[in-house]
């Protein structure tokens, strides 16, 4: 239960933190390629496109997926806490 709770919390939080990290280093500028039609050879490059999709996915986490996975982690957190209280320390 504890392991599941931790995994779900990490799934909820890590992409959000990653978005803010990408924003801090200016990588979110690659989002401009969503609306540009001026695609030339090498611009955007593969790195731009990877960052574009990463930023978009991470942004979607900050706007919604964090609540889904964070919410799903709650029952497991509760179960882990209850389990740790009912079992004697080894």
């Amino acid at each position: 239960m504890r392991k599941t709770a931790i995994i779900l919390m990490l799934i909820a939080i890590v992409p959000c933190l990653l978005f803010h990290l990408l924003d801090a280093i200016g990588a979110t500028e690659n989002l401009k390629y969503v609306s540009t039609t001026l695609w030339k050879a090498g611009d955007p490059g593969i790195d731009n496109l990877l960052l574009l999709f990463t930023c978009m996915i991470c942004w979607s986490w900050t706007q919604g997926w964090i609540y889904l996975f964070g919410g799903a982690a709650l029952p497991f957190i509760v179960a882990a806490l209850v389990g740790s209280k009912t079992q004697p320390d080894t």
Partner: protein
Amino acid sequence: MPTKVTSDTPSQTIAQSLWLPALILGGMALAAAALVLHQIHVDRLFYGQTNGTLTLGFCLVPTLPYLLMLRLIHKHGRTRTSRLILLGLCSALGLWALRSQYNQFTVSSILLQTLGVGILQLAVIILRWSRGAQRHAGLVAAALTLSFAINWAIAPLVHLPDAAPYYTNTTLPDDVRGQLNHFYQVWATPESRDAAQLDMSEQNPEWDLISRTFLAASLANVALQYPDERSRALETLDRVVDHSVSVDWREFLLPYGRGLKKFVQKPEASIMVDGEVSLMIGLRRLVEDSDDYVHRAEHKRLIDRCIRAIESNPLSLGESYPDECWLWCVPMALTSIKIYDVLEGTDHSELFARFGRHARESLIDPESGLFYSAVSLAGDVIHEPEGSTVWIGAWCLIPVLPELANDQYAIMKETLTGKLLFLRYGREWPVGKTGNWDIDAGFTPFGMGPASTGFSLVAAKEMDDRDFFRRTLCLLNLVGVPQTEGGRTRYLSSNLVGDATFLLAKTTGPAWAEIVRRDAEQKGVQP
């Protein structure tokens, strides 16, 4: 873990190992060829040339899901039958994506095929787990479902913005303040202006013009609504007008409008450019006018040209491009003439009424009830109704032909919008129809149109449709990735024309109301 069971003979296995990859590679080749042809067609149509390397690279991307299929089938297909079923499912999914969304398959086929393959692969993996692991997965799935249900229930309360501050507030909402600051900076110096507008112009000269028009309209609305912001808004509005007037009208046209074909109406002019530039001047004069205003003569010249074009055509149309009349541009020109009327005391009511009659008789698609997007001077349909055109057509007609605008808006709400959870969006084409993709439509996965969504927001705000407005604005804030830095707000996944559209959507209202008020005042009737 259960042992993999296979009933195939060695010769059958060898045959499968040859024909399955051959079939999949054949599918990849066909998809790539279709995409290459489509991209070449789009490139030639809009840019007059083709970039071979880019086209090939761009078009190979959607074939990547086939590689996933290959891996899935070979790794998890236990028997020949199961492999065939998986291959059939994946291929059907891909074919459906190509068939139903053929105009947008570059994006939607990637999404659909990858999603389908991912779900299939996950299902196969889970089926091979032990009972205990399956039970645990079931618990996680139940927790996710419960969390989804709770989020579904409370999301509208948490995420939906309040529409009221955009309608009644006397102080600027924070996001409008931020967006204005961004545009003030863009137009602060010729260098910053040129850099931003050149970027637009290189992508699509029309977007350059539209971004100016929408910004000018936003600034006029802000100046009329917020007294504290009036002088700053007016200062930037003057810069927009001064520079736009100085640009040759052909520079705002896509390459195919610059001499390849001759305009039919004489003197040669584009009602798109005349209408939008005169609208900018008119809005400036609507906010503040004087006898010695520098662009009065130019205003009259442009308006005269619009009137002449519309009057001379049996269907009250003017050309945006040679023998191409867009139902974005003609309504905008009519609004511009209306503003001129309230400024100069002239009256073109008969011209407006004539357009209204012709619109209802000849310019509306009988099937959908919507304006066609573009017709020829003779009224032949060039483009069926498209969200990236008709929303703005209806928005423009509000102060000119309000009944027609209301009728169109009601039909657009019914046929050109969609629901996604608690959000609303604009569709590029009515439900069940797929038109011809063009550069203005943007990527339209599942019929959802980014341009149509932005423009529907403008129409909804002006129509006082607050529920639709807040639900669409919420979607915009979710997908547009708004970022505020140093007091300047812009949408990271948008561009200048998108930002101007969103700003207009948040501010539109006072200018059209002012036109209606002055018109009623001149005619001595109640607005």
